């Protein structure tokens, strides 16, 4: 088990692909930045589990809890608030309780922010990046609502939870559906199991306007407040990227964090400290911008036709 989980040939291709990503942003005059892997606070998202550790400062009596970032989002937005302009970062992200064919608890993330862009403009740039580094055909674009209507014949915006449960039962998910009270869980189940394998096969697809209840850190759409200005990129059954027209309202951001923590409390999950530096930065003003995070290891899997993430990592978690 001392040997790498990827072949040396795969690692060479990995290096070349990362080089081409850097080139893409250098040509577009986007500044490369590095932000800390440690943070005093972390995400509140109920579906993200953080790693934490204790820092013993030689000049302080008490140890401090530090979290490993699940994405560099908060720190990069602080740079935007400080006037950085367009920035990108290639960094490690860490997510506890994730592992499998497409997951490694420590993985490489490409994240970038574009002041002056909305989510549609950034979707175009994601498309351009995929064409440049993966030589894909131009991506398709479909709203979340259209995708559900086309593939499953249901409207996710109007469907009631009881109807959604019957749809789930038809696909054999009755056991999950029966006691479920959260519509989003059922939509996510149908999306993962029934939609993702059927879309974006020949060319990538950008799915936009997720439900407002799944906004994460995206702005709510003004024309249709039922949806958020959030998009995702899928290709060959793999979720590649998640982007937002970024929420800049500090008050709204704070209440989303608090709502998450209330949900955590109900679910019996630990409540997370809210990132005060991030909220202060938002209060000082985040320029109107769009940002996106893309899983680099998965991009390399697609470039190499790999079937497991371990095939593109020097050492996967089992060999770490």
């Amino acid at each position, binding site marked *: 088990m001392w040997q790498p989980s990827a072949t040396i040939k795969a690692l060479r291709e990995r290096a070349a692909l990362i080089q081409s990503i850097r080139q893409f942003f250098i040509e577009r005059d986007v500044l490369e930045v590095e932000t800390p892997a440690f943070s005093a606070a972390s995400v509140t998202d109920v579906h993200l589990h953080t790693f934490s550790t204790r820092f013993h400062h030689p000049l302080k009596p008490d140890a401090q809890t530090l979290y490993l970032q699940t994405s560099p989002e908060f720190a990069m937005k602080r740079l935007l608030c400080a006037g950085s302009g367009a920035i990108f970062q290639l960094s490690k992200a860490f997510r506890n309780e994730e592992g499998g064919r497409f997951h490694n608890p420590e993985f490489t993330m490409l994240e970038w922010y574009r002041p002056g862009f909305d989510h549609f403009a950034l979707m175009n740039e994601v498309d351009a990046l995929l064409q440049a580094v993966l030589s894909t055909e131009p991506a398709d674009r479909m709203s979340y609502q259209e995708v559900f209507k086309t593939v499953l014949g249901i409207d996710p915006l109007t469907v009631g939870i009881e109807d959604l449960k019957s749809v789930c039962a038809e696909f054999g998910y009755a056991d999950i559906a029966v006691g479920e009270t959260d519509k989003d869980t059922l939509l996510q189940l149908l999306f993962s199991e029934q939609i993702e394998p059927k879309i974006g096969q020949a060319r990538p697809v950008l799915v936009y306007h997720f439900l407002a209840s799944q906004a994460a850190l995206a702005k709510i759409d003004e024309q249709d407040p039922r949806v958020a200005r959030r998009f995702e990129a899928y290709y060959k059954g793999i*979720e590649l990227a998640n982007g937002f027209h970024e929420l800049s309202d500090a008050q709204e951001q704070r209440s989303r964090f608090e709502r998450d923590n209330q949900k955590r409390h109900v679910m019996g999950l630990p409540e997370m400290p809210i990132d005060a530096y991030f909220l202060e930065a938002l209060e000082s003003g985040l320029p109107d911008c769009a940002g996106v*995070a893309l899983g680099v290891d998965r991009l390399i899997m697609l470039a190499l036709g790999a079937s497991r993430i371990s095939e593109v990592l020097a050492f996967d978690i089992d060999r770490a």
Partner: protein
Amino acid sequence: MANYSTNEFKAGLKIMLDGEPCNILENEYVKPGKGQAFNRVKIRKLISGKVLEKTFKSGDSVEGADVMDTDLAYLYTDGEFWHFMNNETFEQIAADEKAVGDTTKWLVENDECTITLWNGSPIAVTPPNFVELEITETDPGLKGDTAGTGGKPATLSTGAVVRVPLFVQTGEVIKVDTRSGEYVSRAQK
């Protein structure tokens, strides 16, 4: 019986599903970046033999199934039951037709078979990978024609029918792979 959470699911774990004991074959983790995690699990139902995929919400748990495999020697059948014996304890177990199923055609006296017990009762019998059986009937075949014909059917002492090469004759004992039902060779004397 203990409950098992999705993170304990691994190949070989026996769980209850729809009132039937099942064997887990594969467990795949599925999770959208922002959203609920699921486990897509491949399962074999142990009584019907059906293989299916079942999705669980990560963290959900299911009841384990009291299923164990034991190696027992085949003794005889009385027409209704097939009798097996533990060669060390001499304890005997009788399996009914439902449990034995198609395996009857591979049962050779004294061969060790794997008996799957659910709550102590046999639900499946797996024969050894290779068995030796006598041919009771096959066409004499044509002398000299040894290749490229695909052989001929031969009926074995248990009633099983396998394709054998033309040179193999009635009364000979042959070795058969029970997993594929294919002829392997003449038995070593």
